[in-house]
């Protein structure tokens, strides 16, 4: 019976296989592909924005299009590009690093991906129905309310509501996986730092995406059902939105940056050939940062006029974040200190992360001084600050992770020459684009303006910034070329550990069998794989006998349920459309029935199948 299912699974077509997969390694690749597509889309928007700002009084696009582009650029980059890319790595790496066969809830894992994906699709549909959202990624009211914004904001509210729900359930899955699915001997304080930061970021998601969901619901109710939350005449309050948004928004920036910290903490020791300096301090700093990140949201609202006492309290709280962050910076430096450093592309990205991130942190502390923030606020200085952190930190971190884990994921390395070209183009292009924006901001150029008058001393700097943006674009083109080139030309990897690394994911075979570990490994130390290489026999000790392996069945239900949510959300948006072809109620009903119908179908028990022992032995012989 079990064998029959196993072989039946093999016969399915490729497309069906990817639509129904619940394997964390395949979902990781889906996340990476979807994230990359959204990244490229938002990147192109950024280039259009920089073309518009290249020269004064440019008329390349209208102010309306400009507003739509900056809104979509920010929203997509944060919610639909960087988040899924991070989830891609977390999905692939975390189960391997803790010695698990899969995540705690494989079905929820697939559901999380598809809901995120359809939510992103819903947001992107806005272009075809009267224009994209245009009130900035922060969607401040009243700009974003029914009174001032077009249908684009409906797509914003519902698209993010849907995709945010996917992010939330994926985060719950990661938390339970990390807490419950660790191999014997893998205590919390032996977990690699990437697992720690993944855990903490997931906890932040649970506590930050839920206020966002509430805020988006208020915005949706305002726009579709005449809610009066933000209308002062009707007893509403427009500061409310800013509070809710930033209670989510500041933790969100750490949700993104903590996993990047985790990647750096994996890559730096691997290529310094030393253990991570100050492991315990790193864990501690991660937790402190997470805690503080909920205490500082008002630093985005210093100029709103809440009052000097509140501003001072939040200014101090903001400054304290620099302490745990500093601990991390020094630990990375000390990890490199005296190590046998190898500067390949992964390490270049990781090492350059450190100084760039420090620059972003320093401007952050500058911004946190409330009185001076009146000068910086809403100028290009803020834009420079967060791009130093998001590109200089997160994107470089993600690239380091990509080059580092690529051989395990795809069975070959990325080309090093192209990799280094990419790195230098990106590094130079990035500083060219954004360093100068600090100065632009200091001499008074406001952010979110679609054009400016010449002769204010801004012209050259804007030109330089735009040129830099194109250099960065070129870097991304080289990256894509590299992926294609390496897929055909790069040497295939069959060894399990091409980098001579330290953590458990490198103990698996390449390619990884679908069950990851034929026998669950017994962990005996921090950096378990390195420990066995030095003190053991060069392979992991098994914690269980070789036996049949239980695996979950694939399912199309996650896809269908997410499609249901998509249709439901679209139906809601139709309420505001002038001449909907189908009555919105019908569309909403279809989506509703699909969503809950598939949920009821899912309550039917599915116990998965077993890979029989002989089959496991055969696979092990093939890949081993």
């Amino acid at each position, binding site marked *: 019976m079990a064998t029959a299912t196993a072989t039946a699974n093999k016969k399915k077509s490729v497309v069906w296989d990817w639509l129904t997969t619940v394997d964390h390694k395949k979902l990781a690749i889906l996340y990476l592909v979807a994230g990359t597509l959204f990244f490229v889309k938002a990147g192109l928007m950024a280039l259009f924005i920089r073309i518009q700002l290249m020269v004064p009084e440019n008329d390349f696009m209208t102010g309306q299009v400009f507003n739509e582009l900056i809104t979509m650029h920010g929203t997509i980059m944060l919610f639909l590009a960087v988040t899924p890319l991070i989830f891609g790595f977390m999905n692939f790496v975390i189960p391997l690093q803790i010695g698990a066969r899969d995540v705690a809830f494989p079905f929820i894992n697939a559901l999380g991906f598809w809901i995120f994906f359809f939510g992103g699709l819903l947001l992107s549909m806005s272009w075809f129905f009267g224009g994209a959202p245009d009130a900035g990624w922060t969607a401040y009211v009243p700009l974003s309310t029914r009174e001032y914004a077009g249908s684009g904001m409906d797509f914003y509210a519902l698209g993010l509501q849907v995709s945010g729900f996917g992010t939330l359930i994926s985060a719950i899955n990661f*938390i339970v996986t990390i807490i419950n699915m660790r191999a014997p001997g893998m205590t919390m304080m032996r977990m690699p730092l990437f697992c720690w930061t993944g855990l903490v970021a997931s906890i932040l998601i649970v506590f930050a995406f839920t206020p966002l969901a509430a805020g988006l619901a208020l915005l949706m109710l305002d726009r579709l059902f005449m809610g009066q939350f933000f209308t002062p005449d009707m007893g*509403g309050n427009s500061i409310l939105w800013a509070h809710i948004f930033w209670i989510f928004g500041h933790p969100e920036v750490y949700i993104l940056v903590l996993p990047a910290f985790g990647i750096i903490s994996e890559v730096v020791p691997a290529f310094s050939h030393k253990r991570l300096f100050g492991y315990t301090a790193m864990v501690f700093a991660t937790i402190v940062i997470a805690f503080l990140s909920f205490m500082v949201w008002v630093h985005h609202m210093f100029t709103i006029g809440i009052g000097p006492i509140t501003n001072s309290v939040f200014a101090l709280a903001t400054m304290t974040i620099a302490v745990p962050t500093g601990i991390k910076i020094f630990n990375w430096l000390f990890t490199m200190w005296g190590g046998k450093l190898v500067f390949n592309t992964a390490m270049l990205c990781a090492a350059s992360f450190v100084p760039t991130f420090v620059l972003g942190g320093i401007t952050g502390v500058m911004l946190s001084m409330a009185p001076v923030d009146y000068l910086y606020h809403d100028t290009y200085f803020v834009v420079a600050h967060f791009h130093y952190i998001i590109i200089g930190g997160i994107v470089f971190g993600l690239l380091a992770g990509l080059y580092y884990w690529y051989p395990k994921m795809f069975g070959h390395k990325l080309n090093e020459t192209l990799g280094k070209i990419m790195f230098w183009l990106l590094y130079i292009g990035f500083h060219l684009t954004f360093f100068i924006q600090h100065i632009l901001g200091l001499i008074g150029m406001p952010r979110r303006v679609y054009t400016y008058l010449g002769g204010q001393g801004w012209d050259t700097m804007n030109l330089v910034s735009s040129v830099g943006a194109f250099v960065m674009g070129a870097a991304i083109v080289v990256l894509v070329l590299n992926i294609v080139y390496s897929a055909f030309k790069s040497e295939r990897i069959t060894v399990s550990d091409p980098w001579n690394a330290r953590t458990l994911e490198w103990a698996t075979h390449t390619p990884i069998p679908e069950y990851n570990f034929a026998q669950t490994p017994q962990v005996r130390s921090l950096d378990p794989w390195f420990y066995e290489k030095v003190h053991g026999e060069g392979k992991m000790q098994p914690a269980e006998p070789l036996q049949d392996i239980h695996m979950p069945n694939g399912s199309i239900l996650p896809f269908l349920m997410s499609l249901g949510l998509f249709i439901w959300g679209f139906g809601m948006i139709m309420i505001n459309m002038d001449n909907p072809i189908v009555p919105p109620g019908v569309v909403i009903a279809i989506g509703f029935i699909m969503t809950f119908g598939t949920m009821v179908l899912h309550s039917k028990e599915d116990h998965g199948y077993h890979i029989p022992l002989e089959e496991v032995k055969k696979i092990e012989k093939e890949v081993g």
Partner: protein
Amino acid sequence: MSDHVDVSNGLPANPEKSTIEGKNKFLGMWVFLGGETIMFATFFGTFLGLREGTAGGPTPDELFSLPLVFLMTMFLLTSSLTSVLGIISMKKNNFKAMRMYFLVTVLLGLGFFGCEVYEFWHYNHVGLGYSVSAFASSFYTLVGLHGAHVLFGLGWITTLLVRYWGKGITLANAPKFYSASLYWHFIDVVWVFIFTVVYLLTLGGA
């Protein structure tokens, strides 16, 4: 594994947590409820910030009637009790009793929901439309969201009852009933806060 467990030989003492699937569900549910707490907290904050904003429309003193709210509270608190009794029966491997208690839970929940529908209808009737004031919007949103949770919980428990009506307790369905009952308690706790914050405090003038 979780399939083919012979119930006649007795289940383990905590059938909901004796498989890894069950343990995962247990933890996952708690984390989920943690997130839900924060979401509700946001709506509570919104209500507290906006409840004075009646904009010339009906005010809480004119609307709220404590006897009805008391009845609703009784319905929901009792239903929480019966769901506990259901889980105790589950741990004693008494499927018939568990089934009965969950059925009563559903009926009490329906009673609550019926009252809420009447309450909203009544307020609307006396002039508290959704868009009348910020107070109206935030009241309906907070209490209505809770109502939607009640409805979802009812659907959930009913689905489980239908699916397992004649099947007995197994290691596979025990975690499901347990998660549903956790969710139901959560709804109940949120109601206790609504009762105090929305009705008592607002009427008491605090």
